[in-house]
Structure formats: C-alpha cells, structure tokens
C-alpha cells in the first residue's frame, strides 16, 4: 500500500512541464488524478485562451482551466509584482548558485500562474511537487479539523509524505544534474512546491521541521532555484511563518515575495474578457450576465480570481440549463438560500452576497469597534420594561455580537482580551466600568475548566461582549480612539519566563518559588554584595527593582498628567 502510494505520487510529480507540451501534460495529469478520484483540481489557470488546439475541448470544461494565462500580459497580477518575480528568477538562474523563493498570498491571487507564465517566457523547466493525492481524502472536507483523531491520522501520512518530499528533492537534483551536462542553458530546471494543502499540517510542528531539514540540504547541494508557494488565508496568516520561521528565512537566505488579492478592476477586466470570448464561441448557450451580476461576482470573491471565474461560469451555466429565468433573480434566489443555511442573519451588513461568495471577514479592529462603540438602533420597537427595572433599559443593538465574533476570525478568548485592553477608553462612569469588569471576570470564569472550556468558549465571549454593551449606559460619542493590542499575553509570558529564570538562577538558595520571588529577590536587589554570575546581576537589576514614585509609561497607552495635581482634588 505504502510503496504504491510512493510510486504513483513520485511519478506524478516528475512529469516535465516544458513549454511545448505543457497542456498535454496537464491533460495527462488530469487523467491520472481523475482516475484516483482526486477532488483537488489543478491550480488556477486564468486569462486568455492561448492555443488553438483547445477548440475541440468539451464545453463543460471549467473556464478556469480553459482561460489559463500564457503571457505576462494576461496575468491578473500587478506588473511590478511580476517584474519582481521575474528579476528574482533571472538572477537565480544565471549563476551556479540556486536560491529559495517563498511566494505567499491569499489563495487565488495568481502565485502559481505567475511562476508558470514566467518560466514559459524565460524558457525554464518546472518540476512541480504536489502533495500526494491520498492525503486529501482526509483533509478535503474544506474545514480543517484539529481534533485529536484527525491529527493522529494525518501525522501518519505526514511521515510518509515528508519522506516522499525529500526523495523528490533528491531526485530532482540528481536528475537535473545529469541532464545539465550536455544541455543548453535553456533547460534550467526549477522546482515548485505547492503547499496549498500542506499548510494543514503546519500546526503539527513536525511539518516545518521536516521542511526545514529538507530545504537545508537542498540549499547545500543544489544549483537550481526552488520556489515554495504557500497560500495563506486571512484567518491564519501565520501558516507561512509556521513553515518558515524567521530564523530559517535568514539562515537560508530565502527571499519572500507576497502577493496581494487581485484588484477589482483587474478582475473585472479578466471576467469581461472571458465573457466576450465565451459569448462569441458558444452560440447563445451561455447567456452573458449583466454588469451588476459581474460586479457582484467580483466583489463577492474578495480578490480570489479562481473562485470568481468559477462563480461566473456557474452563474451562466445554470442559466443555460434552466432557460428563460431572468438571471438576476436566479442569483438572488441562490444567495438567499445560502443565507438561510447560515444560522446567523446578516443584519445591517452590506447587501446580499452573490453566488457562492466567500465568507467576508471583518477586520479585527472593525469588529472591536462595533462592540466598543456600541451602536444602538435609533428607535426600533422597544420592549417596555417594568418601572423598577427601567435602569436596565437599552436601545436595541445594531449588530449581533455573536455574528461579529464569528466574523472576526479570532477566537472568542482572544477577542475578549482585545476588548479588555480597550474597553476603558469608551466608558465614562465608574459604575458602568464596575459592571463591565465583572462581566469580563465572569467570562474568564466560564472557560476556566478545561473539560468544559470547548463548549463554554462561545458563551464566554457572548457574555463579555453583551455585558460590555449592556453595562455602557452612558453612551458617549468618543470619536476616534486608537485600539491597542492586549498586553496580557506579553505580560503573562514575561511573568512565566521571569519566574522560571528566577528559580533556575537562584536554585542554590533552595527556597520555594513564592518566598524566593517576594522576599529574597527584592532584598537581593538592595544588597551590594557581588554575585559572581553576570546573568544573576542583570536579572536582579531587571526584576528586583520597580519604578517607584512615577508612572511607568510602558503599559499605559498614553501619557498621564502629573499625579500630584490629581491627588489634591480629594
């Protein structure tokens, strides 16, 4: 079983994608993949139709495949970006020294397409590594599942996969070396590693170590450039940092070029081009959607050109099947049904989403602002409370707090920390702050038990947000307030590190941690008797002393008026 897996995947990885037979190969590979019931499609292909032998293609072929860009002009990537990548490639294919390039960016922004087009134009040969297909059967459910069972399973595959990857690198190297002897310069090979699915495993920690090891040995031996392509999602943009921590980047001199999402105007251009092309070819089978639909597809894809093209095709094809429904209403119907599937209604959000649009993510600070500024609706149908409860009366909310948290792409706990860091700026009354802080404390208490914290997490963030919204009774228009990162994470980390360091450095005193930290260390700072150890001296200087009689500005976010004048008010 395992050997079979290795064979087929390595073979598949070793298909040469030279300029001439690029498309044939892709077709071949498509068949291979198809025969293995491989759900993952080849990566993005977009732009103009580029060779005439595509005329006989079937009509239901995805447009994404049909309109692969084959020249720099067709790329939906900014010219400067393309130039940057091209320059890198030129520099690193010139000499005998190979290099490492890391391309990052959200999915569907044209990373792979750029590389492919450029290599075509520069006459480079690509050797592409894709993850073994068997792996996908566990992970293609789109949702990355982190539960233990999953990770155990994927770990299994990971080991074989890393071995395969190393073998791939080795063979790519050797193979190319052999070829190099007799061949001309135009046959500079290049390895591309596509990490689309690989990022799933980065959380396991061993993925990046294996990656590090293999790239290290690659750098030592290789004379060819190696390109890593990592797509990072807006929620977890740290995946590339997981795989390539900064030390590794510096050690191996990896250059990093990050791509932005495709700009709406560029995307619009591409979509219109595809549509006119299709319209001219299909003899009325495809109904051209009007401008508004195009715009909706464009905005709904949030810079992912692959999904935009897919959506466009979906919209037109559906129409072609159904016949004479007006397209717009169809789009609306679909979108409404997708809406209904989501449990949360989007109240107060911008319009209806187009077909199959991506989940829009709320920028974290916008989400925070929605809670902290606590926009209340002007005068909705208000539920009248009895008079003895009238102080609890609040206007109805403009936003649904749970919806905000869900769309902020951070965990509820983290969101609470952000709220906690910033909420004081938005309060004017001490009584309100008292209630709000109690709600925050409640929220922390809810998640304290590790057994139930998984289920309670959502409730905790709900308690915190709603508590904050409710307790802010004196709504003041604060205008713009800068929001800050939570200090707690840094503080608690430092607390832990300092405690460990203290226990390590002063272990010869044989004291319990509490008395060491509260009794011995502060007094050691007062003594002049010299320690032999420089580390001990600096630690004592650092931890033993507190800045007395003045405010530390390190943690408070703004400068504070002089204290003395405040104190005399009482």
């Amino acid at each position, binding site marked *: 079983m395992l050997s079979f897996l290795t064979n087929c995947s390595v073979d598949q990885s070793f298909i040469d994608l030279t300029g001439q037979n690029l498309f044939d190969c892709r077709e071949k590979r498509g068949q291979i993949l198809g025969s293995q019931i491989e759900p993952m499609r080849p990566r993005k292909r977009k732009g103009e139709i580029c060779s005439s032998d595509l005329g006989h293609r079937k009509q239901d072929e995805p447009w994404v495949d049909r309109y692969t860009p084959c020249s720099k002009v067709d790329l939906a990537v900014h010219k400067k970006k393309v130039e940057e990548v091209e320059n890198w490639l030129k520099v690193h294919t010139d000499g005998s020294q190979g290099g490492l390039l890391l391309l990052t960016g959200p999915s569907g922004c044209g990373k792979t397409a750029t590389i492919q087009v450029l290599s075509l134009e520069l006459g480079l040969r690509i050797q592409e590594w894709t993850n073994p297909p068997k792996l996908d059967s566990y992970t293609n459910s789109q949702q990355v599942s982190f539960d233990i069972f999953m990770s155990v399973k994927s770990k299994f595959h990971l080991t074989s996969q890393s071995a395969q990857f190393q073998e791939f690198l080795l063979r790519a190297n050797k193979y190319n070396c052999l070829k190099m002897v007799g061949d001309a310069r135009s046959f500079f090979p290049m390895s591309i590693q596509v990490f689309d699915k690989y990022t799933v495993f980065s959380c396991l920690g061993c993925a990046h170590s294996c990656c590090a090891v293999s790239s290290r040995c690659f750098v030592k031996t290789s004379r060819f450039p190696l390109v890593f392509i990592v797509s990072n999602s807006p929620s977890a943009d740290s995946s590339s940092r997981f795989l390539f921590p900064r030390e590794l980047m510096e050690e191996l001199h990896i250059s990093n070029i990050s791509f932005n999402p495709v700009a709406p105007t560029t995307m619009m251009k591409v979509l219109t081009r595809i549509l006119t092309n299709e319209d001219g070819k299909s003899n009325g089978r495809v109904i051209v959607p009007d401008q508004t639909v195009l715009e909706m597809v464009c905005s709904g894809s949030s810079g992912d050109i692959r999904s935009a093209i897919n959506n466009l095709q979906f919209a037109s094809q559906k129409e072609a099947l159904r016949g004479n429904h007006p397209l717009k209403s169809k789009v609306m119907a679909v979108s409404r049904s997708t809406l209904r599937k989501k449990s949360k209604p989007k109240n107060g959000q911008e319009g209806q989403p187009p077909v199959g649009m991506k989940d829009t993510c709320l920028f974290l600070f916008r989400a925070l602002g929605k809670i902290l500024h606590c926009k209340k609706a002007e005068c909705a149908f208000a539920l009248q409370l009895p008079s003895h409860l009238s102080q609890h009366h609040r206007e109805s909310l403009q936003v649904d707090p749970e919806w905000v948290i869900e769309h902020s792409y951070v965990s509820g706990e983290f969101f609470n*920390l952000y709220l*906690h860091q910033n909420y*004081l*700026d938005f*309060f*004017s009354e*001490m009584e309100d*702050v*008292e209630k*709000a*802080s*109690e709600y*925050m*404390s409640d929220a*922390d*208490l809810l998640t*304290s038990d590790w057994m139930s914290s998984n289920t309670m997490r959502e409730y905790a963030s709900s308690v915190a947000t709603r508590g904050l919204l409710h307790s802010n009774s004196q709504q003041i228009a604060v205008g713009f307030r800068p929001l800050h990162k939570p*200090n*707690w994470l840094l*503080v*608690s980390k*430092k*607390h832990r590190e*300092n405690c460990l360091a*203290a226990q390590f450095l002063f*272990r*010869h*005193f*044989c004291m*319990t*941690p*509490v*008395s060491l*930290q*509260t*009794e011995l260390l*502060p*007094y050691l700072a*007062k*003594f002049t*008797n*010299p320690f032999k150890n420089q580390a001990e001296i600096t630690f004592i200087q650092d931890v*033993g*002393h*507190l*800045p*007395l*009689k003045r*405010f*530390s500005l*390190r*943690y*408070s*976010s703004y400068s*504070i008026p002089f*204290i003395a004048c*405040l*104190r005399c*008010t*009482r």
Partner: protein
Amino acid sequence: MSLWVDKYRPTSLGKLDYHQEQASQLKNLVQCGDFPHLLVYGPSGAGKKTRIMCLLRELYGAGVEKLRIEHQTIVAPSKKKIEINTIASNYHLEVNPSDAGYQDRVVIQELIKTMAQSQQIQASTQREFKVVLLTEVDRLTKDAQHALRRTMEKYMATCRLVLCSTSTSKVIGPIRSRCLAVRVPLPSTEEVCNVLTSVCKKEGLLLPPELAKRISDKSGRNLRKALLMCEACRVQQYPFSADQDVTEPDWEVFLRETANYIVSQQTPQRLLEVRGRLYELLTHCIPADIIMKGLVRELLNNCDGHLKPEVAHMAAYYEHRLQLGNKAIYHLEAFTAKFMAVYKKFMEDGLDGMMF
C-alpha cells in the same frame, strides 16, 4: 559571601533559637532511629525547613549537608517530558512537585518510586530508609495528593516522607491522617529580636533594640524576612541608628502607591493606570494572589470602617475567582473597579451628608 539567612542557619536541633521544647520532642522522635511520615506546617519564615534539615542531620549525620542540585527529566505516560529541579544528598531528596504544574502527579509517583527502589548501600551502618522531602504540598493538585497517599503506603518500608506546607487546609484528609503533623508557629517578637541581635553580634555589629523591634514588626515576625531586612539596613547605613528607615521590598512600596492611586481618584482612566501598574508587578515575578492580598491590605488601611466588611467580602469573592480563572488580570481589575465604585459612592454620600 553568603546571606545572613544562610550563614547563621542553625544546623542541629540543639542549636535552634526558639521553640526549644518542640526541638527536644523532635530529637526524641528520631532517637529510636525511625519516625513516621511528617507533615510540617506553619507560616512562611517560621523555620520549617530549618527544623526539617536539623532533623535529617540528627538522623544521618553531616552527610545530609552535602547537597547536589540536579536537573531531572521525567517522561510522563503521555510521552511528555517534565523537567524539574531536585536537591539531593545521599540520604534524602528534596523536590517541589508543584513546579511541574498540573503534571505534579507524575513527578510524585516517578521520583518516589525511583527513590524507594534504590536501596541504601550499607544498610548495616545506615538507616534502612531514605527521606523524600516535598515542599509546597498545599499547592499540589488533588490528583497528586491522592497519588501521594497511595505512594506513602506502598513504599513505607524504604522511604519516609516529610511534607512541608504553609497550611493544612489544602491537604486532603487521608494524607493528614497518615502523617504526624508538626506545627511550627512564628517566633514571637522577642524571639525575632533576640535572633537579630545575636546574628548582628556574630557579624560584629551593634543593633539598637528599638531598630530590632521595628524590624521585627515590619517583617510580620517572618524571620527570614527580618534577617533580610536587617541585612538591607546594614547595607543602607552603618552604624545603625534607632530611627533609621527599615528597607521594604520595592513591590510592597509600589503596591502601597497603587492603593493610594485607587483611593485618590475613581475614573476609568485611573483604572487604566492601575492596570498598567498591576502588569508591572506581574512582570516582576509577583504572583497574582500575593498582589491581591497586598492590595486588599493597603486598601483596608485607607478606607473607612463602614466599608471594611464590604471590601473584605469583595476581596474574598474575587480572590476565589482568581484561583479558579485563567487570566488573573480580569479579576484583579474587576476587584479594583468594584472597590472604586463602592468607594466613590461612599464618598459622594458622605459629601451629600455634610452639605445637608
């Protein structure tokens, strides 16, 4: 140059400065060469550790003073590696299992097992058991305490346990009943003064009795703290004067200032400043519960008698949450906010009362 605390630590039961009656009882206890498991408890700085070490020396002779600090790695059944520092001599092993956090159960089981399974080399001339000294037993998780209870019975033949804790309230009943409980109370003010004077005499210094008295008051009769204070005073100024400032740790002064800030103004902005100061304390290695305690003490000094019961109640409420919760700052801040609100209301009411 070592600290006075270490330099003048009594090393035998006969040389102890106070609680002499207890010392002679302990001497009698080990006279016959064997003793039951011990649970030594008492406030910090009362001399628990000193007494335990004296006891061990009585048992094994000077050999127990040859200490080595070891860094041990224990592999938990879940394959997780736990690293812990131990202090050992040929006859005993001292470990603070709560260093390992929630994995303390594994530490207890593994360490005691290895200890108990290695026999003494010369059983004829030595005792046939070794001693495991566990510190901070009250901070052990319930899991670990139950594991300890089993271990105590199982390895009774080859090892004795000496447990050291500040209070017995967090030690489960079965353990308490398996041990001989020895309470080491704080020394009285006179005893602290005597110790301070005698230490100073050994150093060749002259300590005014007034200063000794003030140091002992300031230290709360915690002898370790008193000696450290005394040494700090020596660094600060010599010859001593009777009215010289007794050096306090920076964090206590800082905490007092923080309490003053809280009392002087009650606004959200002030709370933000206080939060910054709490963070500062935390980064300087002061545990959150100690901050809470210190803050309450200072605030109680600052507020009116009518408020005191309420403040104490609030403090208990949030201290409890602090123990249960994950992130200390939420609860510390909630307590501060609550105090501010209550205090503000009280002051405003008082102001109204004065006007009419």
